[in-house]
C-alpha cells in the first residue's frame, strides 16, 4: 500500500521539484536519481506481488475523491482557456460536455465505498514498464534535450517544464494502473491526455500546436465516452458498485457491457486505433523522448491496458469480436502504411499502431491465452519500441536526418547505437525474440477461440506480418550496409543517451530469455485467478527450442571475428567498373555516384490509399458497436448485447 502510494506520489513530487530547478546540472542529477529510485521501486513492487493474491486497498477519505474532482475541473478550465485563446471551438465543446457529465456524476450520486487502489500481477508488470522504461526515457531526455535545444536555437528553453510534465505523466500512468475506482482512473486518464497535449506541443511551431490540438480533440472524444460510462453506471445501470474495476469485470457481459463498450471506446482513442490513428502519427513533431514515452511506456499503453482489463467481459460476445476486428484491421492497414514510409519515426509510429491493434484484437477475443499474448505483446513492445525511438532520436541528431535511406552504413558510423537498433528491430519481428513469441501465441489464441472471426483475424495477422517482415528487414539492410568511408563518431553521443539505450537493449534480450519465468511467476497465476485455468501457450519443448534459438542468434555474430581475418578483401561488382563504396567510374571519365534506396511499394501502400480504407472499415465497425449498445440502452434488454458467439454468427 505504502509502496503504491509512493510510486504514484514520488514522480508527482519530482515533477514539482523539477519545475522549480532552474540549473541544468542540478536538474540532471535530480532526474538521474529520481529515475533510479523509480526503477528500483517498480521492480521491488513486482517482486512483492510474486505469489500474492490481488490486493485491494480501501481509502476511507472522501477528500481524495474531491481533490481529484477539483483536478479534473482545473484541467477542464485550463483546456477551455487554451481552446479559447487558440480558437479551437470543437475542443471547448468537448471539454464543456465532459465537465458537465462529470459534475453530474460527482454530485448527482453519492460516493460508494469501493476500494480505490489495488495491485495484481498485471498492474505490477505495467508498473515495471512505466517505472523502468519510462524513467530510462527521462534519463535519455536529459542529453537529448540539450542537443535538441542546440539544434533548435529559436525555441525558448522550457526544459524544467518539460521534465516536470514527463514525470507528471509517469505519475498519472501509475495512477491508472493501480486505481480500482473508475472515477479515479478517469481523473488520471485526463491527466495523461493533458500531459500528452503539453508534450506534443512543446516546440511552439504551428505544426506542433495543430497536432497537439488534434491529439487533444481525439483523446477528449475518448474522455467523453469514459465520462459517459461513469454517468451510466451511476444513474442508469442500477448497479453503482460497478464503479469498481473489479466488480465491473466480475459482473459479466449482461450488466456491464454498456460501460465496458464506452470505456473500451475511450481505450481505442487513447491507443490510437483506426479511425483515431492520426493523432499518434501527428505526435511525431514532438522531441523524440516524448514519442518514446507516448509509444512505449505511457499513453497508448493506458488505452490497451484498460481494454485488456475488460477482456473477461468482452470474451465471447459480439461486442468483443467487433473490437477484435477493429484491432485486426488496424494491424493490417497500419503495417501496410509503415511499409510505404521512409521516415524512420513514421515507420515506428505506424508499427506501434499496428502492434496495439494486435493487442486490442487479443483483448477483444478475451480468452486466457489471448490475454497471455496481449500482456506479452505490451511488455515486448514497450522495451523494443522505446529502444528504437531513443536510437532513432540520437541518430537523427548525429546524421541530421530521420530518413531510413540516409542511415545507410550506420553500423560503421555509430556501431553501438546501430547494434542496439538492430536488437530493437530484431525484437520487433525476428523469430526467437519477443514480439514474435507473442505473435505466435496470438495465432494460437485466435485459433483456440476458433470462430470464423478468429480465422479472419489470423488472415489479417498472416498478411500483416508478411508486410512487417518487409519493412523491418529492409531497414536492417540499410543499417548494416558495408561502407568503409564512414567514420566512427560514437564519441560525440552523450552518456545520458548512450547508457539508457544500452540498458534497454540489454532488457530487450533479457525479457526474451526470461519470458518463460515471467510467464510462470506472474502471468499464469494472474490468468488462473481470472479465467480459472490457464497454462503457458507455448509448450515447454517449444520454449526450450526458442531459448536455444535466442542463444544461437546471440552466438552467431561472433563468427564475424573469424571471417574478418580470413579471405582476400575484394570490392563489389559494378559491371566491371572500378569504384569505391559510393562511386564508380562511368563512361568518358565521369565519376558516378551510387545510391541504393529501398523499395517502398508506394503505389500500393501509400498512406493516402490505405488510411481511408482502414478508417472507413473501422468507423463502420464502431457504428455497429454503437448501434448494439444504443439499442440495448434504449430497450433496456441486454439480449442483443450479450449475443454469444454462436448466436452472433
Amino acid at each position, binding site marked *: 500500500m505504502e509502496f503504491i502510494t509512493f510510486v504514484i506520489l514520488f514522480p508527482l513530487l519530482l515533477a514539482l521539484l523539477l519545475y522549480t530547478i532552474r540549473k541544468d546540472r542540478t536538474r540532471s542529477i535530480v532526474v538521474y536519481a529520481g529515475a533510479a529510485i523509480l526503477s528500483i521501486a517498480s521492480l521491488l513492487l513486482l517482486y512483492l506481488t510474486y505469489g500474492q493474491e490481488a490486493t485491494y486497498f480501501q481509502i476511507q477519505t472522501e477528500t481524495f475523491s474531491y481533490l481529484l474532482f477539483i483536478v479534473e475541473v482545473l484541467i477542464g478550465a485550463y483546456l477551455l482557456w487554451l481552446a479559447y485563446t487558440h480558437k479551437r471551438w470543437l475542443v471547448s465543446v468537448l471539454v464543456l460536455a465532459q465537465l458537465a457529465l462529470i459534475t453530474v456524476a460527482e454530485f448527482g450520486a453519492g460516493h460508494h465505498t469501493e476500494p480505490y487502489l489495488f495491485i495484481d500481477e498485471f498492474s505490477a508488470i505495467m508498473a515495471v514498464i512505466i517505472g523502468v522504461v519510462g524513467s530510462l526515457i527521462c534519463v535519455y531526455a536529459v542529453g537529448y534535450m540539450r542537443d535538441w535545444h542546440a539544434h533548435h536555437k529559436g525555441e525558448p528553453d522550457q526544459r524544467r517544464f518539460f521534465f516536470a510534465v514527463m514525470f507528471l505523466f509517469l505519475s498519472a500512468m501509475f495512477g491508472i494502473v493501480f486505481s480500482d475506482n473508475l472515477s479515479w482512473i478517469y481523473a488520471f486518464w485526463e491527466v495523461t491526455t493533458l500531459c500528452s497535449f503539453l508534450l506534443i506541443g512543446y516546440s511552439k511551431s504551428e505544426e506542433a500546436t495543430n497536432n497537439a490540438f488534434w491529439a487533444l480533440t481525439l483523446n477528449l472524444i475518448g474522455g467523453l465516452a469514459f465520462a459517459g460510462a461513469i454517468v451510466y453506471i451511476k444513474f442508469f445501470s442500477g448497479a453503482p458498485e460497478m464503479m469498481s474495476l473489479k466488480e465491473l469485470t466480475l459482473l459479466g457481459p449482461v450488466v456491464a457491457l454498456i460501460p465496458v463498450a464506452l470505456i473500451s471506446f475511450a481505450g481505442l482513442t487513447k491507443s490510437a486505433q483506426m479511425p483515431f490513428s492520426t493523432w499518434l502519427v501527428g505526435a511525431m513533431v514532438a522531441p523524440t523522448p516524448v514519442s518514446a514515452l507516448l509509444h512505449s511506456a505511457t499513453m497508448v499503453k493506458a488505452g490497451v491496458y484498460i481494454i485488456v482489463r475488460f477482456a473477461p467481459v468482452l470474451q465471447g460476445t459480439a461486442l468483443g469480436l467487433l473490437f477484435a476486428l477493429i484491432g485486426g484491421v488496424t494491424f493490417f492497414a497500419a503495417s501496410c502504411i509503415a511499409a510505404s514510409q521512409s521516415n524512420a519515426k513514421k515507420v515506428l509510429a505506424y508499427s506501434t499502431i499496428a502492434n496495439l491493434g494486435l493487442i486490442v484484437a487479443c483483448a477483444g477475443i478475451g480468452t486466457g491465452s489471448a490475454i497471455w499474448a496481449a500482456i506479452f505483446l505490451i511488455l515486448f513492445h514497450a522495451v523494443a519500441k522505446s529502444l528504437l525511438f531513443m536510437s532513432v532520436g540520437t541518430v537523427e541528431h548525429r546524421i541530421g536526418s530521420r530518413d531510413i535511406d540516409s542511415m545507410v552504413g550506420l553500423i560503421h558510423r555509430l556501431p553501438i547505437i546501430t547494434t542496439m537498433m538492430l536488437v530493437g528491430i530484431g525484437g520487433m519481428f525476428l*523469430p526467437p525474440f519477443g514480439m514474435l513469441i507473442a505473435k505466435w501465441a496470438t495465432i494460437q489464441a485466435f485459433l483456440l477461440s476458433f470462430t470464423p472471426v478468429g480465422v479472419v483475424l489470423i*488472415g489479417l495477422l498472416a498478411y500483416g506480418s508478411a508486410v512487417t*517482415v518487409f519493412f523491418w*528487414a529492409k531497414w536492417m539492410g540499410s543499417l548494416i550496409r558495408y561502407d568503409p568511408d564512414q567514420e566512427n563518431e560514437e564519441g560525440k553521443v552523450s552518456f545520458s543517451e548512450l547508457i539508457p539505450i544500452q540498458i534497454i537493449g540489454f532488457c530487450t534480450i533479457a525479457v526474451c530469455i526470461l519470458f518463460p519465468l515471467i510467464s510462470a511467476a506472474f502471468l499464469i497465476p494472474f490468468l488462473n485467478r481470472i479465467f480459472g485455468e490457464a497454462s503457458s501457450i507455448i509448450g515447454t519443448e*517449444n520454449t526450450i527450442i526458442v531459448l536455444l*534459438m535466442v542463444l544461437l542468434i546471440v552466438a552467431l555474430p561472433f563468427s564475424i571475428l573469424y571471417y574478418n581475418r580470413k579471405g582476400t578483401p575484394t*570490392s*563489389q561488382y559494378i559491371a566491371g567498373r572500378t569504384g569505391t563504396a559510393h562511386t564508380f567510374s562511368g563512361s568518358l571519365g565521369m565519376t558516378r555516384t*551510387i545510391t541504393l534506396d529501398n523499395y517502398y511499394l508506394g503505389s500500393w501502400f501509400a498512406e493516402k490509399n490505405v488510411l481511408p480504407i482502414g478508417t472507413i472499415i473501422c468507423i463502420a465497425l464502431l457504428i455497429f458497436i454503437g448501434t448494439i449498445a444504443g439499442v440495448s440502452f434504449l430497450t433496456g434488454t441486454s439480449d442483443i448485447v450479450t449475443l454469444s458467439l454462436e448466436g452472433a454468427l
Partner: protein
Amino acid sequence: MNLIWIILFLVLAPFVGGLISGIDRIVTARMQGRVGPPILQPFYDIGKLFQKEKLRINGMQNFCILSYLVLIIVAGAIFFGGGDLLLVGFSLMLAHVFLVLAGETANSPYSHIGAQRELLQVMAVEPMLILYAVAFYIVAGSFTVATIIEHGALGISYIWLLPGVFFGLIYIFTIKLRKSPFDLSTSHHGHQELVKGLTTEISGPTFGLYEIAHLYEVVILLGMIGIFFAGAPLLCICALVLLYLLEVFVDCSTARVKWQLMVKSSWLVIGLVAFVNILALSLFW
C-alpha cells in the same frame, strides 16, 4: 522430438537435395533438347566452390550466410524432428531475413536489388506459411508434425480436406525453389537475372554454404508438401515426383514475371484458395 529423424535429416538431406537437383538439371536439359550435366553435378559444383579462394566483401556477409544455413538446418530439424509447424515457418523466415541481410551488406547495386526482391518474395510467401500451419491445426488439432502424421496414419486425408491450402503451397513452392517465372531475386544455373541478383557478391566457400542451404531447403519444402499425404507413403512419393516434374515443366515453359505480378498473384492465390479453404473448414469442420 525424434532424434533419429533429426540426424537422418542432417546427414541425408544435402545428398537427397543434391540428387533431386541433379535430376532436375537433367530433366530440364532434356525438356530443352539437351543432354544435360551428370547427375552428380550439384555435388561437383559445391565441391569446387569449397576449393576456391575465399573472397571477402566484409565479414558481416559471410556471417549472414552462415546464419542462413544454420537456421535453415534448424527449421529442418524442427520439422523432421516432429516439432511445431509455426516454428518451422518462423525459422525459415528468419533464415531468409539473414539471406537478405547478406545481400544488403555487400553495398552492391545488383545484390541490393536482389535482396529487396528476396524480401518481396518473403512477403509473398509468408502468409502461406502461417496459414499452412493454421490449416493443419484446424484439421489435426495440433501444430506438431508428429501429431499431424499420427492423425494422418489414423485416416485423416489432409489432401481432401485442404486442397486449397495444398494448391497455395504449390504456388509458393515455385517462388521458394527460385524457379521461373518467379526467379526474381536470384536464379538457378544457366539463368541470369541482375547478374546473379542476391548472390552476386557471394563467392567461393560462402557460396557453397548458400548452395547447401538451398539443398536443405528443397528437402524441407518437399517434406512440408509431403505431410499432406501422411499415412500414404507411396502416394506421397508419387505426388512429390509429379509435382517436382510439374515445377520443372513450369520452369522451362514460362518467362520471368515482374515482382508486382509475383506478389499480387501469390497474395491473391493464398487469399482466394488457401484462406477460403480454411474459412470453410472453420465453419463446417
